[in-house]
Every structure is written in C-alpha cells, then in structure tokens.
C-alpha cells in the first residue's frame, strides 16, 4: 500500500489519485441518506468497525453501529442539532464493532443539500479517539473526585460557619455572665462595706462593756453588765441574720415565677399582722380589680407586702387614725402595686437618695432596723422591677412597685 502511495504522490506525477487518498486517510468517511442508511464509506471506516463493505453499504444505518444508550443520544441530540443547523461537530459515540468490542470515536457531520435546500445526504468524518478517551476518562474521574472534594469542602465550611456562630453565641453568653458576675461582685463589695460598718458599732459597744466588766469589782454591777451583753449580742445576731437573709435574695435571681393573685397574698399578709392592725386600730382597705393577678415569685410578693404593710403600721402618726390602702394599676407593659398610708411620711429631700440603702433608718423609732426597704428593693429588682416613693412629712407615704407585665 505504502509503495503504491509513494508512486501516486510522486511529485513528478501531475495528478493525485483522490480515491486512494479517500480510502487511506487516517480518518473514516461515510455518506448516509437522511434516514441514516450508509450508502458509501472509505476503507478506513470499514477497518474501524471491522465489517466487510457488502455488510455495510445500503444495509446498515449509523444507529446500527451504536449501543442503545448511543441510539437515544443520536435521536434526542445529534440528529436534532444536525437537522436544525445543518452541521454537528465533535460528537463522541462508541461504535460497536462486528466482534462486539467498542471503539470510541468522534464524529463530525454535515448535511449536503441541493440548490433548493432539500437534504440529499449527510457526510460524516470519524476519528478514532481510543487513546484520548482513556485520558478523558482519567480526567473525568479526577473531575468527579474534585467535585466530591469541593462538595466536602462546602459541607465542612458550612459546619465551620455553624460552629463559629455557636462560639459567638457562647461568647455573648459569657460576656453576659461576666457582666452579671461583675454586678454581683460590686453588690458583695457594697454589702461587705455596709456589713463591716454596721457591725463595728455593736462590736465596739461589746468591747467597751467588756472593759467595764473586767474593771468592775462589784458583783451587782457585773450582773447588770452581763444582761447588757445579752441584749447587744441579741441585736447583733438579729442584724447578722437579716444581712444573711438579704444576701440570699440577691443570689436567688432565677427564682420561679407563677401566677399569683394579689387578693390572696394581701389577705394572708393582713392575717399575719392582725395583732398589730388591731392594736393600732388601723383602717386597712384594698382593691386589686384593675390587675387581679400577676406572674411573679409568690415568696417575693409575700415578703414585699409584709414589709410595706408592717412599715405603714410601724410609722403611723399618733395624731390620727391610720388609713392604709393597697391597689393595682395596669399600663401597656407593666403592672403597678400601690401602697398608700397617712402616717409619718419621710423627708425625701433629706433621705430620698439613701431611702433604700442597707441600714438606713429615717425615724427615731424604737424598732427601726433599716433592713426592710433594702430587702424589698432587692427582691423587686432581682426579677426586673422597680420601686419608687412619694411622700410628705406628717402627711403619709405612697410606694409604687412596677412589675414587668406577665399577667396570667
């Protein structure tokens, strides 16, 4: 064959043998009718598919050389593109050879039309791409691996972003907690300061008494001094207990809320103080119809009412009959408890700024201990409320306690 070619292409020859070129080109050529029937091909094409010429020409269609999957692609993509554009290029099919093995090829096809545009036949060129296909297969595997890896990365990235937002949330929680701790620390520092201050007086007192006691030689004097020890120690113990109680309240921030009915708590409080109410001949009234109930820690409300009511009784005016009225009001976001009396009142100009501090007393009264209002304020603020007071000396006092609205 090669020798023939050499002869044919001898430059001394003026004429090339196109048929020889057609048959021996390194690519396959075939010509088919619009219905796909192959009507001519070169030898190379027949070599590709391993068929004899008589077995193919006028007998086989292009689709007869394709697998079933290939036929679907031929019908749904290849032939539509060819019909619409007159040309289709670089389509990869697997030819099924006569022995059943496969040959990956690339096909370019072009429609040949007559002068009126009627489709006469289709010319196709076929390239053997066995080696390139191997390479392509490897590329495809690499691409799939890269895609998988990329998806994995996306998933990991998403996970990282999720944990990052979790960490941010935890950071905010920690900051809040830290803030809370700082507050608590400050409270404790205040408390330690007040406590040491308030405990110093009775301790000094005890110290002096001890001095007298040691110096005294008289047995009666010693006995009298000893009873004074008992009294001072009693007061000291009581003060200490109250201080401990107030610390407990500050710690109890997460105390449980529940539905509480004002009438019920008020009746209970009045019953506890019944003796003092009777003794003082006070007129005690209430009206909780505007806001009958609230979501609130029951123990706190009991303690608040007990403090307010006992304060009113304790600081009554000796000049007139004591009148005490408890009621509630409701606003858009809040419920307010109002306790009014016509007692001694408080000089707010003088004492207003330290009214709710620990161990401040504003009355020269025998059993003023200065712990009640501090505890009340602490209890209210522990669950996010506030307390205010309006008062005029010798006219009376009105305490307003604003609760966050959590009506049941």
């Amino acid at each position: 064959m090669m020798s023939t070619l050499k002869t044919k292409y001898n430059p001394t020859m003026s004429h090339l043998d196109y048929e020889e070129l057609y048959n021996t080109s390194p690519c396959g050529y075939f010509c088919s009718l619009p219905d796909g029937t192959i009507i001519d091909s070169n030898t190379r094409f027949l070599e590709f598919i391993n068929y004899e010429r008589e077995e193919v020409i006028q007998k086989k269609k292009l689709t007869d050389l394709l697998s079933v999957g290939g036929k679907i692609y031929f019908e749904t993509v290849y032939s539509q593109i060819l019909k619409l554009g007159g040309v289709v290029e670089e389509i990869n099919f697997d030819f099924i050879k006569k022995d059943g093995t496969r040959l990956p090829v690339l096909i370019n096809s072009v429609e040949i039309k007559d002068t009126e545009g009627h489709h006469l036949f289709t010319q196709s060129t076929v390239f053997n791409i066995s080696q390139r296909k191997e390479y392509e297969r490897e590329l495809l595997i690499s691409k799939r691996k890269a895609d998988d890896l990329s998806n994995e990365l996306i998933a990991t990235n998403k996970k990282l972003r999720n944990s990052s937002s979790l960490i941010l949330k935890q950071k905010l929680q920690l900051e809040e907690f830290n803030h809370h701790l700082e507050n608590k620390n400050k409270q404790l520092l205040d408390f330690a300061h007040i406590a040491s201050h308030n405990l110093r007086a009775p301790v000094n007192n005890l110290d002096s008494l001890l001095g007298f006691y040691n110096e005294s030689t008289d047995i009666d004097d010693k006995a009298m001094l000893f009873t004074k020890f008992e009294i001072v120690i009693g007061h000291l113990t009581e003060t200490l207990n109250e201080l401990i109680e107030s610390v407990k309240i500050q710690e109890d921030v997460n105390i449980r809320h529940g539905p509480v009915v004002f009438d019920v708590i008020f009746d209970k409080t009045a019953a506890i103080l019944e003796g003092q109410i009777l003794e003082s001949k006070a007129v005690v009234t209430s009206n909780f119809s505007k806001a009958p109930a609230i979501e609130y820690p029951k123990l706190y409300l009991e303690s608040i009412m007990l403090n307010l009511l006992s304060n009113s009784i304790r600081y009554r005016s000796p000049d007139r009959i004591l009148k005490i009225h408890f009621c509630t009001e409701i606003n858009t976001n809040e419920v307010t408890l109002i306790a009014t009396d016509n007692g001694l009142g408080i000089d707010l100009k003088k004492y207003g700024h330290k009214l709710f501090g620990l161990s401040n007393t504003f009355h020269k009264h025998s059993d003023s201990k200065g712990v009640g209002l501090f505890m009340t304020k602490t209890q209210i603020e522990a669950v996010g409320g506030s307390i205010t007071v309006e008062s005029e000396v010798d006219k009376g006092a009105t305490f307003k306690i604003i609760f966050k609205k959590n009506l049941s």
Partner: protein
Amino acid sequence: MLKEIIARNNITIHGKGNKSMLFVHGYGCDQNMWRFITPQFKDDYQIILIDLVGSGKSDENAYDYDKYSSLEGYADDIVEICDVLNLKEVNLIGHSVSAMIGVLAALKTPSVFEKLIMIGPSPRYINDADYLGGFSQKDIDELLEILDSNYLGWSSTMAPVIMGNADRPELAEELEHSFCQSNPEIAKHFAKVTFLGDNRSDLDKLTTETLILQCSLDAIASIEVGQYVHNHISNSKFVILDATGHCPHLSAPNQTIAAIKRYL
C-alpha cells in the same frame, strides 16, 4: 410575575388568531425544533413557543432540582404559563416527554386545553413485566455516560454566551450555529427524570381530545408504545407517519403539518 415567567421559560409569541397553539419541545432540544412547523400555522393561530426550564435559553437559575425531579414540576409551569398569558382553548403540541407533561397539565386544568397533540409519546421508557418501553436501566446509565463525554461546547467561554449572560458579539456567529445547548448537569438530571419516569396511570384519567403522531420507525418510542398510549386515552386518535426517527417535525415536516391540520 408575567415578566418573570416570560424570562423563566423564554416565551415567544407570534401569529394571529383567537385560538392558540402551545408548542413544547422534548428532551435534548429547545423551541428551535418547531421552526419548520410554525410558519404553516401562524396565520390562523397565536403561536406560543417556550423553553422548558433548564433547556435552551430558559433561566437556568430557575432550575430547582426538587421541583423538576418529576414531570409534575414542568406541568405546573405549563399551567402557570396558560394562566398568566390568559390562554383559553389551548392546543398543546408536545414532543416526546412533553407529551406526558401535556397530559399532566391537562389533568390539572382540563378546561384550559382544547386538544393535545402528541409527537412520539411514551409513558414509560423502561421495560416492566409485560410492558415493553424499549429500554433497560443499563441503557439509560449508558446515555448518562455519553452525556458526560459530550459537553458540546459548554465551556467556560461559551456557557455564559449561550445563557445570554455575556456581551460577546464576536461569538454571535458561533452562537447562531449552537442549537439545543444546555448545562450538562441539568441535562443529566432531565435525562434521568425523562427516561426513568412512569406516567402510565395518568393516561387513563385523561379526557381531553388527543392526537397521537407516531413515526413508522422510531428508536425512542416504538409503534407498540404509541399503540399503548392510544389504547389508554379514551378520546384519542392514532396516526402513523411514514417517517423515520424520533422527530418527524424535523425529518418530515410536511407530513407532520398535514396530519396536525387535518386533526385541528
């Protein structure tokens, strides 16, 4: 809404007439496939051409893999298109898989559709017991492999041009010759939905008048499958065209036009 849907399905409308013809291409191509047919109807009908989402020049971003994991998603789009365009007495011409999309749409809103014209329909491509769809799962797997090795110019240069996202006039000519391009991932998904679906039970419910056009030799939808569709649609007519292949509207447009005209 209207604008969005027109862009989503690359809807084009032309022709005149009170009645409308809605052409829906099948798997592998786009509205270009009707170009030999529509000139013969444009004087008497309003012609509505669409690209299914994921095909042709539809909005690729609208391709939701969940929505289009069954033909119902496409049928919902058809119903929506008829609704926003206010179409009535619609003649729906569906090729291949879109014949089934047409059945689903007509079952959803029967009053909208006057007639269905199916070209090469198949309710199920995979063989099943006594039913011969013509293919096995293995054949479809092979098709997917072939799709993988034929990206058909879907390169990073051409894809944005085809999608209409790039102003590249120098590629216009190349674009002119690119038909039936689609994103390879979407093409594979659509192929799975098309060739692995089963809509046989929907045929019996259909009451719309239906014409079934069947090629005498079709590797995708055999005469037996066409006959099956005819037997299960009560109000149907079955016409066998003397044409080969799966696209008589491309390979034998005159016969196809004549058959549709006779029916309408």
